[in-house]
């Protein structure tokens, strides 16, 4: 057997059906490249501050096919997407992108943290994040600085997106 060729062909195992499912999602393409070295967890500020979250273990759960456990947990939502781990990953695994892919699958099946759901509802309804926080005080500050006080956000487009891609506020 041609050893060099075999190394090129090498796919890290185990690769579960769930891992293959994530691999098909936008952003999830690189999951099979993970060699479970743990550099991500070593770089992760969230992991440093709480025992609940270990990016390497989360990737491992996906590779092992713990589908329900992963989708039904807060874990994929605890990544800050700061990408410090990606900078240090020797295999070029895009963890933030992979966890986005997992979130999208979870959201489709109704597992979405309420704080995310509420904010998404607001953004799609108002077109932007802070409509409720924009009061006379902020308007006065802007006026003093010579800035436009009518922020002119468009929400027709986001409402259209809601209809097209989100059924009843849940991701379709």
């Amino acid at each position, binding site marked *: 057997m041609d050893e060099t060729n075999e190394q090129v062909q090498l796919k890290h195992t185990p690769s579960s059906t769930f891992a293959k499912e994530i691999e098909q999602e936008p952003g999830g393409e690189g999951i099979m490249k993970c060699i479970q070295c743990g550099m991500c967890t070593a770089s992760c*500020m969230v992991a440093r501050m709480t025992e609940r979250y270990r990016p390497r273990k989360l990737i491992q759960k996906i590779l092992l096919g713990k589908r329900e456990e992963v989708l039904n947990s807060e874990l994929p939502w605890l990544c800050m997407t*700061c990408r410090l781990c990606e900078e240090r990953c020797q295999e070029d695994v895009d963890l933030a992108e992979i966890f986005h892919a997992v979130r999208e699958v979870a959201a489709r099946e109704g597992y979405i943290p309420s704080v995310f759901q509420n904010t998404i509802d607001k953004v799609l309804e108002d077109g932007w994040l802070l409509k409720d*926080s924009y009061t006379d005080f*902020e308007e006065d500050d802007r006026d003093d*600085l010579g800035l436009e006080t009518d922020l002119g956000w468009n929400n027709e*487009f986001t409402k259209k997106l809601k209809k097209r891609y989100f059924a009843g506020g849940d991701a379709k």
Partner: protein
Amino acid sequence: MKEFAYYTGCTTPVRLPGYEAAVKVVLEKFGIILNPMKDVNCCGAQYVESVSHVAFMAMSGRILAIAEQMGMDVLAICGACSGSLKMVKHELDRDSELRDEVNAILEEEGLKYTGKSKVKHLLQVFREDIGYNAVEAAIIRPYNGIRLAAHYGCHVTRPPEIVQVDDPENPTIIDRLIEIAGGTAVDYTGKTRCCGGPMLAMDEEVANKIGIDKINNIRAENVEGIVTACVFCDIQLTQIQFGGDAGEAEKIPVITLPQLLGPALGIDFDTLGISLTKISPQKILEAHQ
């Protein structure tokens, strides 16, 4: 003379209008005109981005299409916005199927994404469009060596192959500008680590721990101020110093890069919105030679 479509995002206009104003007046000093973007929407960062890839592409894609209609590149001053716009541009430029899907929606209002408009974060404009020499030549009231720590923002500098702003592990743009303005740029442990801001939604306690860790690392270097280039980082590094975890230590002023450069360029405090800064940076900004 260079012009940009100025995308200020959701948060800056409400929470940090001084930053918005300072960017405009400082860039004007260097002959760069910023045109406000009308009728835009949120870029979709973090929230929509997490649950619908295609809706996220459409939200940022629409902003880019409006910039194309204006015939200009986009300037973004928030890490989340600049990161999103660049990620989406990267994908739409490479995936014709996705581009067609987004364009089918944009077409209904006469917009089209072709990829013509580039996206720049503020730091790139200083490095690429203005240049360090021009900034140096314009400094009329240099600082007297005050010690300042740069915080770059994760989404401003990563992923580097897409955002193309600075070295992700050893960024230097803010540091160089601090030095050019007469300050002393101070390194500290964990300089490229996150401020904790993106964690606020899921776990405020963890977010605060991450932020305080950063403040403590900066404090250990006897720094008199923190210089930022992202609205979320600026707000997070400010507000954690008012929280219960902050302890009794004196608060370190947090200020955006154009608000630091402004006074050294001879721009007055009122125009730069300095009085709106939550931890007064007066001491730093008056420390001229």
